[in-house]
């Protein structure tokens, strides 16, 4: 057990993250102050939420490119509802964000399940549809800070034990989904459906339906992040989180989620997101020119993935009896 833990890619990533933080703090010692680390975690929270959803989708051999557009659309809707009815309680806003996001995710899921369209095509399409819908409902206008109610803006920044609610939501989500993935029949179905769809079918698992639920979860988390994003930055417009879906996929891949499906963990997605989040937060503070920042974070992604792939290279087949007993 201990041996396996040491060898696992989660451990590898934890080491990589510690190394990264050490290198950064050599140039900028303030980086390792607990308050700063909490800030970095808080900043990375939306990425963590989306990466968990994306991880589940990728597990089932699909991909969800519409998460960032879902986030933007849901964010715009809750912002506009808030402008129209500022007195609505936050609980209602949260529920609306999660359900609207889930609904958009279900739309992806239905297309993948019932029409058997490849998910990359479906979500490429819905990504554009969602962004287009924001244009339609907002007339291309921004919803600005002064239009939003103060309760709406305050919720994600509220601090509990030094960490804002946004960060706590990420922590709770990680815990909930760790449980879902390891202790529920649905969680098991995600792994089975992606690991070997044929075998899963014969075992009585409906692969299409499992994919549908994966998209629904991914959508719900995107919707939740939509509200959090818009309220935290106190602004909503068509292009928020533009291109963010690629960061989300990158976080999953760094976190050891196999793009072929069937392999991945919530902790992996969390660590992948943190790795990426730390790089994005650290590059500006250690005075790297903005021109270089994108290139450097791109390189970091490739290095992380390459090392990960190296660690997971296939070993030889086990033919001899004594070799099998050793495993």
């Amino acid at each position: 057990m201990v041996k396996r833990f040491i060898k696992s890619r989660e451990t590898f990533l934890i080491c990589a993250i510690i190394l990264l933080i050490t290198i950064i703090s050599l140039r900028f010692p303030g980086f390792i102050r607990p308050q700063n680390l909490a800030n970095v975690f808080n900043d990375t929270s939306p990425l963590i939420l989306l990466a968990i959803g994306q991880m589940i989708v990728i597990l089932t051999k699909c991909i969800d490119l519409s998460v960032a557009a879902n986030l933007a659309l849901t964010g715009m809707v809750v912002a506009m509802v808030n402008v129209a009815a500022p007195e609505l309680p936050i609980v209602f806003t949260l529920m609306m964000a999660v359900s609207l996001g889930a609904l958009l995710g279900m739309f992806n899921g239905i297309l993948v399940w019932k029409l058997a369209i490849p998910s990359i095509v479906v979500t490429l399409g819905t990504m554009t549809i969602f962004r287009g819908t924001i244009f339609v409902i907002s007339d291309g206008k921004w919803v600005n800070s002064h239009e939003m109610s103060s309760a709406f803006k305050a919720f994600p920044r509220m601090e509990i034990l030094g960490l804002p609610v946004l960060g706590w939501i990420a922590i709770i989500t990680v815990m909930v989904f760790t449980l879902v993935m390891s202790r529920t029949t649905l969680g098991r179905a995600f792994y089975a459906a992606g690991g070997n769809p044929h075998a899963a079918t014969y075992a009585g698992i409906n692969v299409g339906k499992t994919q549908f639920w994966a998209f629904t979860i991914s959508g719900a988390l995107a919707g939740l992040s939509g509200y959090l994003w818009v309220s935290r930055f106190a602004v909503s417009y068509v292009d928020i989180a533009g291109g963010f879906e690629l960061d989300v996929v990158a976080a999953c891949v760094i976190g050891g989620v196999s793009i072929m499906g069937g392999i991945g963990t919530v902790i992996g997605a969390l660590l992948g997101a943190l790795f990426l989040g730390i790089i994005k937060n650290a590059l500006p503070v250690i005075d790297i020119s903005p021109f270089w920042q994108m290139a450097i974070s791109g390189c970091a992604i490739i290095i992380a993935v390459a090392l990960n792939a190296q660690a997971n290279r296939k070993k030889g087949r086990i033919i001899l009896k004594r070799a099998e007993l050793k495993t």
Partner: protein
Amino acid sequence: MQKQADAILPLKEISKSPAVLELKAVTKVFPGVKALSEVSLKLIPGEVTALVGENGAGKSTVVKILTGIYQPDDGIILVDGQPTIFPVPQAASQSGVTAIHQETVLFDELSVAENIFLGHAPRGRFGLIDLKIMNKKSCDILHSIGARIDPEQKLKDLGIANKHLVAIARALSTDARVVIMDEPTASLSHKEIEELYELVESLKSQGKAILFISHKFDEIFRIADNYTVFRDGQIIGDGAISDVTDADLVKMMVGRDVSQIFPKRKTSLGKVILQVKSYTHPTEFEDISFTLRKGEILGFYGLVGAGRSEFMQALFGITLNTFGTIKIEDKPVQIKSPADAVENGIVYVPEDRGRQGAILDLPIFQNITLPSLGKISGNGFLKLAKEFKLARDYTERLELRAASFDTHVGNLSGGNQQKVVIAKWLATQPKIIILDEPTKGVDIGSKAAVHEFMAELAEQGLAIIMVSSEIPEVLGMSDRVIVMREGRMVTELNENNLQPETLVRHAAGI
């Protein structure tokens, strides 16, 4: 007397002729695993050498070394007596070594000619591929092996037997001197196998050396001149096929006597458990009706493509849009999904166990409990204690030896993977188990184990439907046999009229 001696002499002369390809004390080591240990093998022009061994004995590794996919860690490869290395597959093919693989490696979207000449297409001006010459040459090769296939046709439009012929044509297009055939008859029908034998004979007469890998003893004795037996990565024995009996080979392969191939069992038929009436699918099968009793093994025989697997998939709820009635224990049931089938006590162990059987990235216990998740959970939450108990019960029952429950199935040997798949289905406590080609591609030692296990299950009162294309298995295991041809039930045979000839006649429609 004198005459006989004369007749024998030339034969000896041939087998003394120098090997075109030879392995000398070849060893291949994978990280932590010695796959081959000091293997020596001679391939002689005009002779067929059968490579015999249980699954995982190292046969595929030998093929990969001969074709340059793997490089030996020790020992040498000799071509025409000259030491050679095959650093890349192209080097082997330039030396005239070519292989026809178990799963034919061809490209559906390319034309027949493109498939045949992929990688060594004839070039015309400016180094472009000369389509005219390529099609013409393809035509000649296909003709020489008696195949009537248009070289410009796309491969995906061909049937499986013709695809095989294209694979053979591809092997011959490189001026091959050594042809390796890896279980070439595994997916062929009886007639197609006969044609393949003729082809092997004609290759022999052209002076090609043939390495023939097969699990079927009748065909080894039919076409091979020499044999080499592998066990655990080592050569156990070799020599002329005429000097051995099949019992000898089996003994060498498994290292023990397999005295009786099919287990005797007390057939005590219970009450009727399954009744199927006029089951019909618009395009795949029609009017299938039968009953099945507890403790009975019902064989389904037919040629490949007779609609047996298709019917079983419908019975299991994978294929929809079927008509007809199914009664289980006299109660009519609707099976609209595999989940329904499992619920009703029917399980299906598919033919393609690699693809449809186990989930390699999941640990043993999770594979075993996968179809039983409903039983070990409440409100969608798994009860781990129940899950472990269920998994432990069935791994013990099948004597599955693995260091840990957490071991990923992908890290197990083929035989143990198969045990996981069987344990998985037994854990659902089924009433009816459908076994689709239960011993296809399985070595003879494990075959007997599978048969014994089937008999044991039947004795415990399980009703078994066995789809099989192997006549000895059908005859040896079944209480009754249903023969299917072109999607219809042709006949139902019981002990009294169960003869191999009858079986073949009905299946072929003669």
